[in-house]
């Protein structure tokens, strides 16, 4: 341990002299930029520059990786992504998988975020009561949040496989076994279920801390007035919890729109296209297909980015409101 501290100390002392020299050279507050520099450099190289390259990729075609080898095609990528004879029917679109991805993602977001907010709120309210072993229960609900998405998917794949424990339970009560992940509707159901299972604890915690921030005087006063429970919930708990609820809703939306990991490992996007979401389309088009269509993937990324931009602005607005 002492050795680690010594090594660390040695490395942290190295910048001392150059920094001291810089300090003398840079007047006023410009030294601040030296400290901010590394962070901004990483952001510049791996976040801002990529967005520019993304835009360039989206207006070029071909399968070359190097931007300069790629022919300009204008808005062709966007055109091909967006062209459908009937936009409500993914199969009528040039890029049918993209549209399946969009509709699946929309459906997924609606169910997953909706149900997750309801269940995390219910859990938070139950956990906010005076209950023996509350710490244990809170930990149990939170635990899956820490698991790797791949681990989450494999845990459930093992349970849901044809000869898994769920089917054994079904057969024990006389029901027929189901091929959970090979039936389109069930596979979608389990994608929603597993992602709620994996992420719910995080949102429960935010709501719980929101609930605990409600002054106890308010609850006591309302109790003394014998406020009916329904009215107490609607007039007191809900309005005071609104800021936390908004955080939960926006963060949940941002994450759900980008859902990929768990579902990809659990179902591989199938059966067919039943659980193929938009990020999987990007990954597949850009990296997993035999022919890597970077331009299409970049164009789809930018369309996704525009949705995320709106959601993140909402999030930042919420952050500012909460200080």
């Amino acid at each position: 341990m002492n050795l680690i501290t010594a090594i660390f100390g040695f490395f942290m002392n190295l910048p001392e002299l150059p920094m001291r020299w810089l300090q003398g050279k840079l007047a006023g507050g410009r030294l601040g930029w030296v400290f901010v520099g590394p962070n901004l450099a990483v952001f510049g190289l791996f976040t801002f520059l990529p967005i520019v390259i993304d835009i360039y990729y989206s207006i070029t075609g071909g399968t070359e990786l190097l931007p300069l080898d790629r022919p300009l095609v204008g808005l062709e990528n966007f055109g091909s992504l967006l062209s459908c004879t009937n936009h409500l029917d993914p199969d009528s679109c040039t890029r049918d998988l993209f549209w399946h991805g969009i509709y699946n993602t929309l459906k997924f977001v609606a169910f997953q975020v909706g149900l997750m907010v309801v269940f995390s709120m219910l859990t938070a309210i139950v956990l906010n009561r005076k209950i023996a072993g509350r710490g244990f229960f809170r930990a149990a609900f939170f635990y899956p949040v820490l698991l790797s998405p791949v681990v989450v998917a494999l845990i459930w794949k093992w349970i849901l496989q044809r000869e898994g424990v769920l089917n054994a339970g079904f057969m024990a009560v006389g029901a027929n076994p189901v091929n959970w992940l090979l039936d389109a509707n069930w596979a979608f159901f389990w994608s929603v279920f597993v992602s709620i299972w994996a992420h719910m604890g995080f949102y429960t915690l935010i709501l719980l801390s929101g609930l605990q921030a409600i002054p106890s005087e308010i609850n006591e006063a309302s109790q003394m007035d014998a406020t009916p429970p329904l009215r107490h919930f609607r007039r007191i708990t809900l309005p005071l919890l609104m800021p936390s609820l908004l955080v939960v809703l926006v963060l949940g939306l941002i994450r759900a729109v980008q859902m990929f990991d768990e579902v990809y490992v659990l179902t591989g996007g199938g059966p067919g296209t039943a659980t193929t979401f938009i990020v999987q389309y990007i990954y597949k088009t850009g990296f997993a297909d035999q022919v890597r269509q970077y331009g299409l993937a970049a164009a789809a990324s930018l369309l996704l980015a525009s949705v995320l931009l709106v959601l993140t602005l909402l999030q930042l607005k919420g952050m500012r409101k909460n200080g």
Partner: protein
Amino acid sequence: MVKLLTATRGKNGWDWTDWAAHIYLVLGVVVMFGPVLWLGMSSLKSETGIQTFPPTLLPYEPSTIAIPGRGDLKAFTITAGEFAGKEMGELRRLGLQAQMIDPATPDTVRRIPVGDRTPIMRVRAAWENFTGLFTQFPFARYLWNSVFITVIATILTLLVNSMSAFALSKYKFTGRDTAFLIMLATLMIPPTIVLVPNYLIASQLGLTNSAWGVIWPAVATPTGVFMLRQYMLTLPDELIEAARMDNASEWRIYWRIVLPLSSPALAVLAIFSVMWRWNEFLWPMVVLSRSESFTLPLALNSFQGELTTQWNYLLAMTVVTLLPVSLIFLVLQKHITQGIASAGVK
């Protein structure tokens, strides 16, 4: 339902909302934690035990019986016929008949119809699933890749983010607010939408199939900067002024005064960083294509495609992957939950 949501505990004993709340919690624990326990139990089953359907709770494997002069044979109980109730060892199986030996009469080989016997099972944890990971698969390699990426990336994340949080909270310089806004703006560009260009940049820098290709892109995190800056704002400026009086350099002030004082916030960020890195999946999958550079999640993903029949190894590997995170949670539960509640980040 509504009453459950709002009612508080009755004065005398439990009312029905208490019952409902506890039933909800117990069911919740079963649903949230049961699957993980089931994974753990299953990972201890032998290759035969894991294929048993319906599955057993405990790990069983076929028992053996010692026959003098023949060694250990697979043990069966005879269920019908002349020898019903006896335990015998199987010498070999010939179609629908099996040659069995009664340990009491080791020299006589008896022919028993295979339908008239059931294997004797015994409880045994198949630890060889775990040791096999190291002897039969390049598991140590994946483990090392994951550990290396997690540790190095976390150190770099703490360093880079705390440096910029220090300047943003303790200095006044032209463009400071702009710099902070730029960092927050990166929240709008999540990694999923810059996969293609980041792959280009990583490959131009020669970072594909290298741990550094996984480490660098996510070293600067807007949440990390934000969290550390909020914390450093609460540190009194007098401390820094006093150090300047003593002619300490700005770098020294940063790493000898501000960093140690920020250790609670650094600890929270460190925990998050470890979780992010240990669990990261999509970007590593894009940038690492050769199996010797795989991290644990990538190895798991490729194994589940290839070895669907070898669930015993796959489950053991899953357990090893979730173990470190679980141990961290067990020890640091309070810090993690408080950190999330206060910062609202994951």
